[in-house]
């Protein structure tokens, strides 16, 4: 005699399409989204390089010279070239998302998107100019 009654539990099986890991290559919109998300990797890369440079600077002239020499190696220049493109993509997409992320109102009226985007580009210009001036004045 079997000891216990055996029940089969009800398993609802819903229809789900399997999504490939490469789903984002199917449309340019998705690809752009993933590329935008990947800009963060290059942002982190440059943050680490900056920290590394800072440490070399603090360690003294010899360590710094060695670091600067390392920056001249062609693989690192190539990586910096790619990183520059991704960081530019980050900046531009960030500025254009700004009015969507934060709606600003002035005297009850919504500030038009192009004004906020324009202000972002203006701040970008001023900040870049100031930093370049500080680093290049010798």
């Amino acid at each position, binding site marked *: 005699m079997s000891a216990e009654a055996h029940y089969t539990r009800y398993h609802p099986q819903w229809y789900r399409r399997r999504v490939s890991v490469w789903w984002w290559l199917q449309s340019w919109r998705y690809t752009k989204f993933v590329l935008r998300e990947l800009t963060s990797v290059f942002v982190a890369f440059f943050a680490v390089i900056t920290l590394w440079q800072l440490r070399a600077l*603090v360690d003294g002239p010899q360590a710094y010279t060695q670091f600067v020499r390392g920056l001249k190696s062609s693989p690192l220049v190539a990586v910096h070239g790619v990183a520059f493109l991704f960081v530019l993509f980050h900046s531009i997409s960030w500025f254009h998302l700004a009015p969507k992320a934060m709606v600003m109102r002035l005297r009850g009226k919504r500030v038009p998107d192009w004004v906020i985007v324009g202000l972002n580009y203006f701040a970008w210009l001023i900040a870049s100019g100031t930093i370049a001036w500080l680093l290049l004045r010798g």
Partner: protein
Amino acid sequence: MTGGKTPFLWTLFSAGGTLAALLFPVHLFLSGLAFPLGWLEAPSHDSLLNLVQHPLTRLYLFFLISLPLFHWAHRFRYTLYDGLKLKHLTTLIAVLCYGCALIGTVVTAYTLWNVP
């Protein structure tokens, strides 16, 4: 990650994203391309150290390095979830991402504190 921490982490993400957007292109262009390739003359060790010794520069560098790291942590976490479909590793990924950003922040603070 609990819901209570999300707004705080999002603020770090947003602040870091803004700093990176405004300041990274010029820094990266100069130190990664223009100086190594000799397009522009790089500042000497002494003049750069002089600049870094100023308290305002140190404050600037602290935020310039740490906030974009948190921006990366937050964004990359979701890239891994959606892009590679790793939703089941939520806690591990979050701990790794924010942990790295935190380590970077501590090293930055320590380095800036000990500028000669």
